[in-house]
């Protein structure tokens, strides 16, 4: 393989792209060429580097010097001074003090605050996602090698079970147990599917993993396939994630070339290959049986369960379906062992969790922290406090199927069990932090609008219930509400939970239930007093914009 003297990484998360990362990247290529360094220095775009205050960021290895924010006009000087003459330019460096993410973890935070701990995002942003060689240099494929040459399928499942890893897609089902179900299912043909239909509003952790470290998912799927006895895999990526799809397809081609996918991996009798399947814009396809229908070329309408996919999945064959983040934990667990993994997080929810931090805070972005951190810590440490010093009112977790968490629960440890005891849910890992200027009726209306839109329409309670609940909330926000509406809303919420066929309908009522439990007075003010205390709701019917007359 080709060896380079230096490596230049340019951040390409959405913020960096908006701040000209693409131009910076191109200028680097041009200047490196101009100085005749193209055989010595590589330059790559690396997605989210894990720092969300300076854009774009440029890291140069092996010195691990971080420059930022870097503009096009500084590129020539960096190439000339740093790469050509070997002199670091202190005045262009990003200040260490403000670093978050992995770099800060290495530099400053250890032992003082609940620091970030990157397992899932270990390589994202630090390696070139288009190079399998770079992945291999960073421990890539050592876990698969270990599995195929030293372990039996039962050993692998045993290790995952011991690690206590739980599904990171939202439901928190024990991963090892699911693997053992598929392993025990009868059948010659089995499938492994990676659910990358990440569509929960506010959640983009899987996108960052897929864009930043696609090989880790391929490796994890091969390990899972070996454990359950599958020889074919699918990655179902939502249609909107074009870059993630491109990176995966490229990664699969490279993996085939290097013999990490295909026949007789590592000289054993184990064969495995992966297809990428693009979604076409449907939130419901994240539900695992709807996802199966969609791969089969049908409308993404959930199946009736049981039977479960573990015995009757894709084309009726036993199928293992895991979320991207869940799979991304697997190689690290195999490499370091279950004991190592259990040192992170809490005893009942070991490991780390990737959260997207959003809303009315100073810094938004992605963090990976041990299970059990609290909302207060997230807001104060990672989000650098509330924007404009407004008061924290509520957080909405896990996209639209998550809970509405009032400020009074901000010291509850964020792990599956503690949250369940408090009557709320962790969901898929989005933390939408809202300040006092947020109206709960307005928020609930927006959330229900999402469900109304995304309901597949197969079962009546969900199709009709979400529409009705949205209409009632819209009425309240327009000053047309009545107190009896609140009883109807609660009943709808209950009916949705009890009678819907799948998770979408079952959780659609959660925002209603949470809002009426924690913020009932504010909702009633809309009805009794005819005012929106936060000053958000129109409180009168919106006048529709008049269409242009041609």
């Amino acid at each position, binding site marked *: 393989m080709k060896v380079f003297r230096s490596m230049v990484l340019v951040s390409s998360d959405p913020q960096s792209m908006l701040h000209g990362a693409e131009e910076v990247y191109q200028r680097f290529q041009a200047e490196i060429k101009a100085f005749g360094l193209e055989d010595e220095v590589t330059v790559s775009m690396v997605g989210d580097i894990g720092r969300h205050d300076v854009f774009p960021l440029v890291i140069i290895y092996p010195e691990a010097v971080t420059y930022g924010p870097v503009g096009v006009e500084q590129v020539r000087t960096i190439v000339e001074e740093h790469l050509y003459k070997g002199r670091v330019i202190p005045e262009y460096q990003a200040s260490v003090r403000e670093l978050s993410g992995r770099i800060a973890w290495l530099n400053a935070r250890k032992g003082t605050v609940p620091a970030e701990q990157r397992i899932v995002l270990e390589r994202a942003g630090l390696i070139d996602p288009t190079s399998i060689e770079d992945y291999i240099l960073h421990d890539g494929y050592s876990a698969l090698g270990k599995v195929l040459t030293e372990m039996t399928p039962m050993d692998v499942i045993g290790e995952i079970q011991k690690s206590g890893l739980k599904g990171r897609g939202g439901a928190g089902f024990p991963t090892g147990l699911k693997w053992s179900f598929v392993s025990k299912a009868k059948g010659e043909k089995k499938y492994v599917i990676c659910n990358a239909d990440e569509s929960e509003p506010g959640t983009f952790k899987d996108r960052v993993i897929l864009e930043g470290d696609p090989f880790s998912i391929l490796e994890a799927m091969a390990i899972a396939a070996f454990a359950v006895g599958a020889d074919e895999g699918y990655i179902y990526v939502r249609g909107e994630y074009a870059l993630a799809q491109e990176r995966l397809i490229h990664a699969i081609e490279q993996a085939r070339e290097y013999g990490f996918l295909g026949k007789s991996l590592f000289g054993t009798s184990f064969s495995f290959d992966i297809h990428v399947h693009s979604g076409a814009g449907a939130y419901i396809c994240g539900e695992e049986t709807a996802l199966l229908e969609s791969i089969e070329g049908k409308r993404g309408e959930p199946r009736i369960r049981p039977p479960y996919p573990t015995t009757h999945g894709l084309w009726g064959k036993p199928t293992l379906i895991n979320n991207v983040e869940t799979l991304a934990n697997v190689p690290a667990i195999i490499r370091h062992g279950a004991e190592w993994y259990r040192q992170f997080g809490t005893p009942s929810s070991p490991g780390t969790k990737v959260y997207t931090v959003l809303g009315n805070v100073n810094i*938004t972005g992605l963090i990976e922290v041990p299970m059990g951190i609290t909302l207060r810590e997230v807001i104060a440490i990672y989000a650098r406090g509330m924007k404009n010093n407004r008061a924290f009112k509520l957080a909405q977790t896990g996209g639209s199927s998550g809970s509405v968490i009032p400020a009074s629960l901000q010291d509850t440890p964020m792990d599956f069990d503690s949250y369940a005891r408090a009557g709320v849910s962790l969901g898929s890992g989005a933390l939408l932090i809202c300040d006092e200027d947020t109206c709960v009726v307005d928020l609930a209306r927006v959330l229900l609008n999402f469900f109304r839109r995304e309901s597949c329409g197969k079962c009546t309670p969900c199709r009709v219930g979400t529409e009705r609940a949205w209409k009632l909330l819209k009425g309240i926000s327009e000053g047309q509400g009545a107190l009896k509406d609140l009883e109807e809303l609660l009943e709808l919420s209950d009916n949705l939970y009890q009678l819907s066929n799948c998770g979408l309908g079952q959780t659609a009522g959660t925002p209603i239930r949470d809002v009426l439990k924690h913020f009932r007075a504010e909702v009633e003010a809309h009805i009794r007093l005819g005012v929106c205390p936060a000053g958000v709701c129109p409180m009168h019917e919106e006048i529709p914009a008049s269409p242009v007359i041609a």
Partner: protein
Amino acid sequence: MTDLIVLKESLSELVKNVVEKHGASRAELIPILNEINRKMGYLPSYALEEVARLTQIPKSQVFSVATFYQMLSTDEMGEHVIRFCESAPCHVVGGRQVWQRLQEELHLQPGQTSPDRKWTLVTVSCLGVCGVGPVLIVDDDMYGNVTPDMIPEILARYA
């Protein structure tokens, strides 16, 4: 009339190529429709009929799949399509005001195409770039951290 026949012929050719590329199987139906939609901007009924004929999938099922997914459209879109994220993360950081301004500037309701066929305005669910909300996409260009004041400037780029 001649024009229509030519159009149908080139459309048949396009559909045939796409179906051949992916293979005429049920599992490839969504990839096939995705590609035709990407190339044509929408799925004309004639194209759907051709897909049904070539893949031997009943027409009713091809139409039922084509109308299920949001990224597939059976309606012809305007020259430029504006997709506005209406999910909660964009909404609470100012999306509401951006949406109002967008409607005011274009005089369009969600789902409508302007009479001169220049603009189509649609709302979409979360696009997964919530760190920079409010977000809107014009054709293939993404705009983040959008404020109401930026709307006229963004629209002018497509004038």
